[in-house]
Each structure stands twice: as C-alpha cells, then as structure tokens.
C-alpha cells in the first residue's frame, strides 16, 4: 500500500486506458483545471500526441463531437472543464448522449465519457462552483460516477472508458490534491457497488465525492464521543446501489445524507426519498439532509464557508439525528 493523489490516479487511469484501447482519445485542454496538478497530464500529450486535443471554448460543440464520435465507434473522454460550463453542453448530454441507445431500440451505443471539475472550490463564486450531476440524475440514460478516493477514481474511470454507455464522471476540485491509499496494482471497479468507507452501528451516513473525506473526519470526532457512524459511499449514482444503503439503515435505523449540492432536487433528496419509500420500516427518526442551502455560491470566504457542508456541520447533524425520533 502506498499513497497517491486523486489527480495522479486519474491520469494513470487515462494513460492505462489509452495504452490498452486505441479508440480512447481526450478532447480537453485542462482536465485537471488550472491548479498545481495540471502538469500531471503532460505525459498523456507526450505519449499520445495524436489523441489529445486542445479544443476551442465550445462546450456544446466539444460534447457533441464526443457523442458523435462514440456513435461511430470511438471512446472519447471529453473534458468539459469547470462543471458549471457543462450547462452549455446540456442538450448534448440530455437530448443526445442519454437517449441515443434507447431511441434506436438498442441499435446504437454512445460510449462517451464526460468529465468535469465540480464543487465549491474556494473563491469560485456563483459560476465556478456548481455540482450539476444531481440534475443529470433526472436525465435517464447517463451513468453518473463521483469517486472520492484515488483508488476509486482509477477504478471507476477505467470502467467508464470500457463501458458501452455514456458516462458522466465528476471530480471535486478540492479532491484533486488529496492523497489516499492505493494498492500496487490498481484495478477497475464495477459500477453500482457502494463502498462502506467506515463501519458503525449508530447512524448511516451516505455521501459521495469530497463529502466522503469530510464525513470521515466528522466520524472520527464523533467516535471520540462514542458515536459510531457507518459511512456508505455509493460511488456511482447511476446505477445506484440501493441495497447497500437500505441494509445499512436497517442496522442503524437512522439516516443522514450529506451532499454539496443545494438542498432542493439535490443528491441528498433522492437518497432520502428512496429510503423514505423503500426502507421506511427501518427508520427510527427523521432523515436528515446536510447540503448547501438554496443559494448561489458567494465568493467571500466566510460566506462560502457558511453555505458549504463541512465536518463540523456534518457532525452536528449526526448528533441531531441521534437525539430525534
């Protein structure tokens, strides 16, 4: 076991996929954003100079090229940059990629992978901080993947690039530099299999992406007070491993869902609704959602902090959930 950053694992996954499959290419000039990790992608350009493209600032066009190319047999990885800009490619995601297989009765596939940097990144303000994948959950036909560790990033990206379906892969901008343990030989991870990132008997916490390390920090603090959190990371929203979530709730009787999206129509709401419908009998107390309140993201740090879930807010919500019911 050694440690690796999320960003390095992501680049490893791309490199290994490109080496093993000549159909894989990259459309996107700054897959890791403008931060310090960005140079990690240099070796992709060096080793596959004809398969890495620096496209114009044309999110819709770039996405469409990826979708069309995938229908013609390629496996493009299209980087949409900061996730807020995926809104410019929304029709390509929802009206084209998501429905092509269905609309042709299964005769066409669109195995394109999209990638974007989501989340409250620190000073990103209202137009560089979004997490649009909750919305995409309402557009059936896209696989949605939100890794939280280096090992998951590697394994899920390999699966995405091998998948016959269109996939949206999101990386939280703040995860890129975080190092986590990886085994010597990293390998593909199937979609639809939740990972219990921590075992605990008192309360089930469900979280993805950056919220996973935040929840682990909260869980450690709570453990000092004897509160044992079970942390379930679904890893993929589509397909969703409902079973693991509901089984965990059946053991703990309590559910806290943590997510950085705004409250209404966010990821937390869908998980909460699913359990309220299919795991109701296990619930001993109200479900609690820890999310951004329904505001755009403000620039200034104290404002940004106020609206963003963090380990303290998560711990407080868990304590609240344990008192209720």
């Amino acid at each position, binding site marked *: 076991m050694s440690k690796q950053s999320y960003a390095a694992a992501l680049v490893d996954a791309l490199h290994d996929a490109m080496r093993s499959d000549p159909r894989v*290419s990259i459309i996107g000039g700054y897959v890791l954003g403008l931060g310090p990790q960005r140079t990690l992608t240099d070796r992709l350009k060096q080793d596959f100079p004809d398969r890495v493209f620096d496209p114009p600032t044309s999110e819709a066009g770039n996405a469409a090229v990826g979708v*069309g190319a995938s229908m013609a047999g390629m496996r493009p990885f299209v980087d949409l940059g900061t996730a807020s800009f995926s809104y410019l490619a929304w029709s390509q995601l929802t009206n084209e990629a998501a429905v092509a297989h269905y609309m*042709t009765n299964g005769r066409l596939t669109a195995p394109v992978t999209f990638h974007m940097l989501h989340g409250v990144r620190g000073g990103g303000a209202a137009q560089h901080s979004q997490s649009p994948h909750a919305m995409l959950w309402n557009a059936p036909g896209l696989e949605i993947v939100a890794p939280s560790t280096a090992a998951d990033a590697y394994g899920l990206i390999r699966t995405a690039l091998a998948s016959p379906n269109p996939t949206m892969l999101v990386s939280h901008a703040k995860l890129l530099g975080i190092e986590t343990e990886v085994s010597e030989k990293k390998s593909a991870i199937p979609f639809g299999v939740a990972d219990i990132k921590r075992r605990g008997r008192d309360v089930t916490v469900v979280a993805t992406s950056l919220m996973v390390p935040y929840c682990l920090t909260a869980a450690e603090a709570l453990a000092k007070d004897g509160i044992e959190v079970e942390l379930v990371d679904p890893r993929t929203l589509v397909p969703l491993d409902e079973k693991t979530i509901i089984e965990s709730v059946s053991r703990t009787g309590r559910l806290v869902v943590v997510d950085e999206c705004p409250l209404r129509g966010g990821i937390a709401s869908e998980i909460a609704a699913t359990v309220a419908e299919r795991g109701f009998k296990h619930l001993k107390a109200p479900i609690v959602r820890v999310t951004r309140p329904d505001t755009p993201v403000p620039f200034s740090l104290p404002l940004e902090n106020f609206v963003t879930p963090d380990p303290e807010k998560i711990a407080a919500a868990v304590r609240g959930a344990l008192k209720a019911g």
Partner: protein
Amino acid sequence: MPKGPGEKRQWQFLERMLLIRRFEETVVKMATDGHFRGHYHLYIGQEGTGVPAIAALKRKDFLATTHRNHGHILARGADPGAGLAEILGRATGLNGGRGGTIHLCEPKLGFLSTSGVVGGCISLAVGGGYACAQRRDGSVTMALFGDGALEEGVSYEALNIAALWHLPVIFMCENNSAGAMGMAKGGYPSLVHASKNLLLIPKSMGIKSVRVDGVDAAAVHAATTRAISLCRSGRGPVFIEAMTPRWAGSDPLWPELATGITDLRMATGGAVPTGKHQAWFEHYDPVLRLARELANGGEESVHRLSALDEATRKRIADAADFALASPLPAPETALNHVFVQEASA
C-alpha cells in the same frame, strides 16, 4: 443532355427518388387516416439533393440527418417497410417504435443518431468526422441538415471544430426556405437569419463552400463527389448549400399533399402540367425533372419509366401493408435499452 453521371446512374437516382416520393405520399395518407400522431416532415421536393449526395458515399462512411430524415434513410437503402412501421410506432420499425418520424435511424447503414434538435445533426456529424479521422481509413461523414440549423450556436461551434482539425465532414445544407412563408405568416418555420448569403458563415472559418441547384441531381452529385474526395484526402471539411425551393405541401405548419399524387406522365408527355402548381411541375419537382430528362431517351425510356413507377408503387404498397400489419411493441419493453443490457444487468 446532362453532363456528369452516366445514364445508368441517372436511372439509379430516379429509382430512389421515386421510392422516396411514393413513400412520402403514403406517409401523408397514413397521417390523414389517423394512423400516427404528432408533427412530421416530408422530403418531397428535396429528393434531387439527398439521393445523389448520398449515392456519392461509400459503405464505410457515416451520415447524420434531422427531423426531415425519411428521404435520407431511404436514399441510403433502408427498408421502406421498416421505415413506415417506425412512423406508425410498430415493433418492426427501424427503431422498434421508439423513435417515430422524427428519429428514423438505420445504424447498420452508417447513420449516427437522428436528432430532432435543430443543430444536433451537424454537431454529431463532426463527431463522426472525428472518428473517421482517428481511424485513418479514408472514411468521411456527411451531415444533411436544414438551413435553420445555422441559427443554432452549436452548429457554428461544430463548423469551427471541423475546420480547426481538418475533419472529413461534408456539410450538406438543404436550404428550403426560398418560397417558404414562415412562422410569422402562420406557416412552417423558415430561415430567421441576418445573413443574406449563408456560405459566408463557413467561409468565415476558411471552410471550402459551394452552392448548388438542389433540384439538379447531376449537379448535386458532382459537387458532392468533389467534396468527398477532398475530405478523403485530408483537405476537408467542405460545405455545400443545396437550394431546394419549398414544396407547397411543406409550407403550411402541418404538411399536406398540395401537388397531389405525382403523375409521372407529366414527364413523358402523357399529362400536361396546369393550375396553381404548374411551375412546380415544370421546373422544381426534382422527380419530374429527372424523369423528363430520361424520357428524352425515347419510347423505350418512357416504358421503362412507367414500369419503374409501377414497381415502386407496388414496393411501397407492400411496405405499407407490412407496416400496418405489424404489431405494436409490448408495453413492458419500454423499460429495455436505457443502458446496454449487459451493463445494467
């Protein structure tokens, strides 16, 4: 006498063009008879563009089309029975009934997904061209789209990408706005563009661009053949604007058979064009125009024409019978094919 493709090729064009015409006439009848619901779009009047353009492609090439796709699908050789069945939402349809008129698609003939979103076709086709370029096998992709697509920003982005990366894409713009009345006058949308010359748009990005008479099958075929050969040799993309005057039946918001069932005798002298649509019959109907050229070949040609027409009518009648007799899909199959089956299992 036409220059360009030889007489054999002309007969091939006419066969497909007539097939499309009889198909579309049948579609109107099926709509009128209430066999399917919703808005639909006919290719009548544009057969002279789609057929010779698509005939210039090879088997390995890709295509993308739009809401006005019937003609393109048939031109490429799709089964008319499966086409009509799809329009009727039958299980035997090209899309198993999931697409309907707006989304007819034949992947095994190289069609990318048929998008009804204006601008969708042109941008997906650039992806097709990207795949062709990656493959380095000399294949090309043809986008067949309406002039309205140039109102959408994504089309412009797609043109830019194709130009930047020299992708092998033939942009075939079928400009059918001449003579259209447009939404403002209560008709079908027509071009709402400040440009008085659409070719200036691709030209602004350095894309080779030509205009051609879309009623003249030989001219379209020649221009397309040149464009394809440029693309195959890495000198693409190429933009072609084919001018196809609006067929009267496609002018109102909901299509109607304004010019009646096409009477091929108008090409052979057996019937005389008159009335409100005389100019259409004499000059703008691409089927009659080509038939007239072939009829010039003499009596044998006239016979051959009428035999072709009879065979085509028969073929479409059989297709219609097939479609109407086909079962509707089983309701619960609606849950299939959201994802490739092995992946979702």
